[in-house]
């Protein structure tokens, strides 16, 4: 599903150049649930941004679902993001003047799905994250966990190839974190490929594979026994 070869990325900070990713090689099969771990500054967010086409790599190959991703202009990148990727952010990033349903329907709108179908699909996804009754509520009326579930529903609504989650539980207490992870696991059970960036050990162990990053290189890549989040959720 994802194939990365010798990926480099550096940022210019004034006259200095900061080499963040120093040759990443990484593949990810269909249906995997991968945790990308590392301390801050290890380059994990940069990697996710490049995977999410929010940022371009300096050199190296990136192939997503058989499509080489390179030399994208913004219009093309937007199209690919819409078609291939779903994003879940630490700070939820819901649009605050749109209600839950409209937020979920947004990526469908960019896919030019008709209004009625869009509503139906969005409602369907809200139901799957257990927030059907909250469809008409604004983000400000939702709790952190609910917001993140809306964000997940939004990311899933476009039926992406890969779901990218950047610290999805970073702003949540542990109980809510487990609820969100439970949801992510269930989505993964349905066969969706998910990448989770996190620095929390317990969250990482709820995935099926952990990739450790340190100073811009992968230092460890291991498959693990998945801890089901269900057991922590009453």
């Amino acid at each position, binding site marked *: 599903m994802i194939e990365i070869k010798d990926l480099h990325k550096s940022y210019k900070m004034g006259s200095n150049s900061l080499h963040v990713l120093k040759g990443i090689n990484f593949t990810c099969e269909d249906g995997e649930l991968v945790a990308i771990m590392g301390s801050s500054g290890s380059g994990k967010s940069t990697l996710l941004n490049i995977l999410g086409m929010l940022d371009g790599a300096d050199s190296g190959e990136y192939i997503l679902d058989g499509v080489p991703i390179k030399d994208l202009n913004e219009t093309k990148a*937007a199209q690919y993001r*819409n078609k291939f990727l779903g*994003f879940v952010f630490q700070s939820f990033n819901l649009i605050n003047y749109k209600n839950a349903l409209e937020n979920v329907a947004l990526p469908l709108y960019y896919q030019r799905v008709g209004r009625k179908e869009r509503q139906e699909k969005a409602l369907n996804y809200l139901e799957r994250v257990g927030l059907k009754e909250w469809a008409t509520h604004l983000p400000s009326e939702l709790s952190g966990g609910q917001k993140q579930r809306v964000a997940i529903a939004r990311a899933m609504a476009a039926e992406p190839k890969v779901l990218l989650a950047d610290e999805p539980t970073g702003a949540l207490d542990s109980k809510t974190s487990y609820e969100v992870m439970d949801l992510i696991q269930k989505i993964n059970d349905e066969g969706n490929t998910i990448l989770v960036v996190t620095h929390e050990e317990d969250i990482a162990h709820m995935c099926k594979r952990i990739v450790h990053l340190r100073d811009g290189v992968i230092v460890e890549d291991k498959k693990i026994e998945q801890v089901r989040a269900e057991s922590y959720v009453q």
Partner: protein
Amino acid sequence: MFNKDRWKEILEVLTTNWFRTVLTAFGVFWGIFILIVLLAAGKGLENGINADFGDIATNTMFMWTRRTTKPYEGLPQDRRFEFQREDVQTIRDNVPNLRFISPRNQLGGFSSGGNNVVRGLNAGAYNVYGDYPEIINQDPMTVTSGRFINYNDINEKRKVAIIGQGVRNDLYEKGEEVLGTYIKIQGVNFLVVGTYKKNTSDGGEEAQKEIFVPFTAFSQAFNRGEEVGWMAITAHDGSSISVLKEKIVQVMKKKHKVHPEDNRAIGYFDLYEQYNRVESLFAGIRWIAIIVGTFVLISGIIGVSNIMLIVVKERTKEIGIRRALGESPWSIKKQILMESIFLTIISGMTGIVFGALIIYGINSLLDSVGPVDMFLNPSVSVGVVASALTVLIISGLLAGFIPANSAIRVRPIEALRNE
């Protein structure tokens, strides 16, 4: 363009911060309002002055004789001379493109002050003109009863008269029959065959106190022979009397043996030149209105642009999210542009409507208090409104352009990092 979701979004964005939206809109509203009101006021002034000119044929000159100031061909300086009736034909033969040449003679008015017209026990001082029938085209009046002078009157030197409403009010009882009665002008009886009313607003009372009699009868009754007091000459619409007048004066000088360089022997008044001067004054006023209005409008538009920049700044993160979700940059640009255009047009339309209401109000006020000097029917044409709208759309585009570009210049990753 007619996408329900997009419009919903535009309304959502604009109604989120009502106070700011209204303040922003006010800039454009005010600009277009000032523009409309200024243009209408200019038009009102123009209409007022034009009404003062009335229906007078403006392509007209008046010409009279004075004393010569240079000796010429053995004739002395300071010589009196008079236009003759045959001069009309001379001018006609030598100068093309003239529509009317009316020789005129006059009694009363500025030449003498005393009463010159008597009817029974009533008497009054009026301007009495000896005229040809064409004069009604150059100095228009409405014949309210009877008829005007015709060529039979001229040929037969009939002593008939057409009197103004003012004369009638002075000399006749109310409701008394006027036609068929006689009035005595400087001791000579004239049969009243018509009454007239002038519609020029500036002449006022004086313009209604005139008496018109056939030129030939006037000459005979008051011993003028073939003399002509002055002439009213109107050119055809295509040609300007200001151009032709040189030729006319030249022809007259030659005929009356006046030194070609004697500029004071023949006096004239070029109505068209005066009219043009006033016209160009109005063109000036119109330009001032347009320039002032446009500058006010520009400051309004800068206001819109400014606010749109702030809106974009505020929504940087939202725009980042949208782009992460796959909205194309062009779509975002379109959104910002449409918000800006929408805001500009709505506020501009409100300005136009308010301006129109003010104009309407002033018009009905003018109607109720009666005519005001030099101001009549202020209005703006549909063309002006249409071009104002075009300007609004273009300026909305311009106002949105910089903010829209800055919206898509921010890369989504940076937008999302902005927390």
